[in-house]
């Protein structure tokens, strides 16, 4: 347990988990403008928790990747499972912190937590999918690229978001987001069972 925590720069991750969770709790109900299409009559805002969720995803992903070496794939220890448990625990902790801060700041407990939890889980699922396809250290670019792409191309002509741009929706019940999270869970299970990505470059 100590090894899992230390090798993955647990203190850095814990600190980031707390900062991002508290930040998301404070701004859980806020919307932030997406600037690029401000002149068009289309929705131009996205929920604020996207940004702390993205930052935490990048930090967790980088710390976990830093703890894994290719020769460890043959190790007796299941490092993929260890990493998955490490990330899940910190993601849950961050979501709980977000809910707690949301409740304390009278923003409600369920909404900020649910929204932040969905965003964080969805982005981590994209990161795991990147790992599954052998991206290793570059896997954290997948969730960042998704957010950038979604904020630029999310809107359709009917002034609403495309279903694939679920992260821009200000309510947590986005079916596409839930599908991505489910896919991420399956990908994490595959990695834990195979102990190696589908493709190794």
């Amino acid at each position: 347990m100590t090894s899992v925590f230390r090798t993955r720069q647990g203190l850095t991750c814990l600190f980031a988990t707390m900062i991002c969770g508290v930040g998301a709790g404070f701004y859980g109900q806020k919307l932030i403008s997406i600037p690029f299409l401000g002149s068009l009559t289309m929705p131009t805002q996205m929920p604020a928790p996207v940004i702390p969720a993205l930052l935490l995803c990048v930090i967790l992903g980088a710390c976990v990747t830093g703890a894994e070496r290719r020769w460890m794939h043959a190790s007796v220890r299941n490092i993929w499972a260890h990493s998955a448990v490490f990330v899940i625990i910190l993601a849950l902790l961050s979501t709980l912190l977000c809910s707690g801060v949301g409740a304390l700041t009278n923003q409600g407990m369920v909404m900020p937590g649910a929204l932040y939890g969905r965003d964080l889980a969805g982005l981590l699922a994209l990161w795991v999918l990147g790992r599954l396809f052998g991206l290793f250290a570059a896997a954290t670019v997948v969730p960042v690229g998704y957010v950038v792409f979604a904020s630029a191309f999310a809107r359709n002509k009917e002034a609403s978001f495309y279903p694939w741009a679920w992260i821009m929706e200000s309510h947590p019940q986005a079916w596409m987001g839930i599908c991505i999270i489910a896919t991420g869970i399956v990908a994490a299970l595959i990695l834990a069972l195979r102990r190696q990505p589908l493709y190794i470059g």
Partner: protein
Amino acid sequence: MYPLAKRPSVWLLPLFLVVALIYLFSYTEMESVRGSSQAAVAAASTTLLFSCLLSSVSSAVESSREHLSRGVLDAASRNYFERVFFRLWPSVTAGVIVQFTSAIILLLNSKVIPQLSDALILLGYVLAITAHAAFGNFLGQWFHGRFSIPLALVGSYVFLAFTGTTSFFPLHYLSGMTLNGCCMAAQNINFHAIWALIVFSALATTGFIFLAGTNRPLEKKRNSAALSSGHRATGALLILASVSTGLWLGKDLEGIPAVAMSDEQFECSNTRPQVCLNRVQLSGGDRRMLVAQSISSLTKIGFPEPQRVTASMDTDPTVEEDGVLLTAFEPSYTDEQVVYAAASSYASALANHLCDSDDFDQQFAMIQLLQEWSTGYAQEQVLGIPSVGLEQPLASLNRDQQQTWALGAYGSLARCEVPAKPGKDS
């Protein structure tokens, strides 16, 4: 240094170029830049999102590669600034290619020859892209690639995306993306916005280069540890100076980086009334006669006759006091839109000088009705398009009763009175 074929910017360029072009063609109204090269070059700022991200992420990849291999690949045969130059130029060039491609496409759509002043906007773009490359290089030197590459993307994205959305307007102009608010046909770009971008980007680039490393690459493996406190202080001060100078240069700017063209830039016709349009507005063809005919159709039935009709945004005159009527005119307007804009000038003038009373809603409702009627009437008179869709009970009145109501309503509203609803007194 790596050979060019192995530079990340080379294989990232096609991807970013395609996405930037899809974005440009999906969300930019090409008609809005017709006749103005300045508006065209400024509108290209929307693709800074892609060009800056490209330069930031590719320089982070290059820099983190060097961070890992320091002392092996990059011996101190070149001085620090040479090494930075050779590391960054492919990333900057790739970003510039994306940015200039979108600028060229928009310039082709503007159908005018670019002016020398447009080069200043392009210089601003080049410097903004360089600043993002320097930022990526800084992250790559300080952190491992697994941190620096995604953080370069997140950092550049957050800066580009959210500086333009605060209510503190000078901050908008540091990233450059807000330049796409420029310009309507009667406006020029406000060069304070460009200077804010240029100075901020140049100073920030220098600051990040200072913070990124030293001239002694072999001295210590960890770059941050190799930096002297003076070096760090210089870099931090330069970044602080870049923000404060950029904000100071943009202190008088508001949400749109444009200033109205002066009256001297408008050419007036010999028609009655005189119609004054500028060269951008005339680039779609000289339709001053059409504007004059539209206004005349209303003055013939009793609306006050202006001496001059202008599409300037520089002043705020009134027909009654100055004899000047303001209209809107864009070179992309169809004839129908030209007549509509000209005929709605009377109602627009009333809306611009809404009286200070408790009847705002009623005043506004009457102004809208007046606009609906006057535009329909002018289009019927000038273009022969039958007026349809007029609201009841105005539509149920005969032509003379409608004219009487419209004139009476205009007079009442000009005197700050709320006119009677159509049909009540007619």
